[in-house]
């Protein structure tokens, strides 16, 4: 029987090949398939390209090192999104702590500053580049738990079932979280939609 070329194999077949034969070529194909979707997902979550590239590379290293912990029961995409999501959340918390610390260092102790935000003013949001920047900033303003599911659904276009599996919550909870996230976003982007 003629074996399928590696490029034609599914993700699950490739990871199994990598697990059993330690086939680096299979791993490289998986990296090529998932590097851009994961970059998109992590960037929208973190809002920082450099740290996003680091997180995706760390995700791929984890896949390489812990390939044997993947079982064929789950979809490969679910497994790799779970790893990336966990690493992205850790990085986000680290960045938040660092930002909080640096802002507090500006003035007196326990004194926080309100930074004026003019980006939602209709006269500022003119072209599409600025618009996407505004949407990204709005995404970063909503709660991390809602942001993650909104990105997975509306940007990555995963099904509710897949998101439920990645987040290890019920489909109903996924749906409600997505709606709450969308509602918060709509509120934040009110100025853009009036135009």
């Amino acid at each position, binding site marked *: 029987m003629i074996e399928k070329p590696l490029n034609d194999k599914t993700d699950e077949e490739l990871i199994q090949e990598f697990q059993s034969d330690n086939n680096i070529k299979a791993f*490289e194909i998986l*990296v*090529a398939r998932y*590097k*851009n979707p994961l*970059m*998109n997902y992590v*960037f*929208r979550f973190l809002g920082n*390209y450099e740290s*996003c*590239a680091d997180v*995706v*590379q760390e995700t*791929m*290293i984890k896949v*390489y*090192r812990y390939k044997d912990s993947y079982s064929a029961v789950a979809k490969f995409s679910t497994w790799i999104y779970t790893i990336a999501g966990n690493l992205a959340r850790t990085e986000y918390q680290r960045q938040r702590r660092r930002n909080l610390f640096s802002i507090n260092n500006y003035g007196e102790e326990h004194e926080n500053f309100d930074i004026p935000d003019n980006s939602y003013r209709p006269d500022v949001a003119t072209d599409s580049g600025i*618009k*996407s920047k505004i*949407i*990204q900033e709005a*995404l970063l303003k909503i709660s991390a738990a809602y942001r993650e599911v*909104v*990105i997975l659904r*509306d*940007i990555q*276009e995963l099904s509710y079932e897949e998101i439920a599996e990645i987040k290890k919550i019920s489909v109903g909870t996924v*749906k409600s979280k997505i*709606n709450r996230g*969308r*509602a918060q*976003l*709509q509120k934040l*982007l009110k100025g*853009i*939609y009036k135009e």
Partner: protein
Amino acid sequence: MENDDLKYKEVINSLSDLRKIEAPNNFEADLMRKINNTPAKRQKSLFDLIFSPVKLIPSAALIATAVILIFVVNNHSTEIEDPFSIEPRMREDLLLSKAPVTLSSESNVDLKKDLEDKSTTDKKFLPESKPFEKTNTSSTSIKIDDSKLVIGKIEEEYSAAKNESATLTIPTEDLKSSSISKSNLNFKQIKLTDSSRMEVAKLKENANKYFKIEKKAERKTD
């Protein structure tokens, strides 16, 4: 659910229209370099998991605290003194009589023997200087330096009794007040040597002979 999608249609469209982010060109090269540079983490054995320093430090601290606590609590308990460094206890409740003790009757044979033994052992082992004084008379009379106890003329009276076959009398009140039993003695117990034991045995025989002669003499007089 479709109602929700319609409700947030603008948001959904905005998000899906966002530019797709792509990985940098050298992504794979960087990744393979990182994979080759970072050594694989060694699987920790059960021994490492149990005896890792992180887990040993709290337990060691707990043991140290327990040991310190035991020592602190034990400080309040009774101290054990070195028995060799304790000074002998003064028995002020005993040996009040200043009068010389006179021995009498058969019932006091033991007491006489005790005193005799004591006098001989004292002669042998006690130093001649302080706290004891030795008199120049033929009889040995031993005085304790605080003059609370005077045992005098023991040997003299005992030899007189031997020679004269006279009865020795000790007033019972005096005896009660001044008698010293072995159990009440707070002195160093000295073990007799074989030769001294032989001497004691001879003395006992002599004493028994003496008392037999005495009884016979009494019967004759009767």
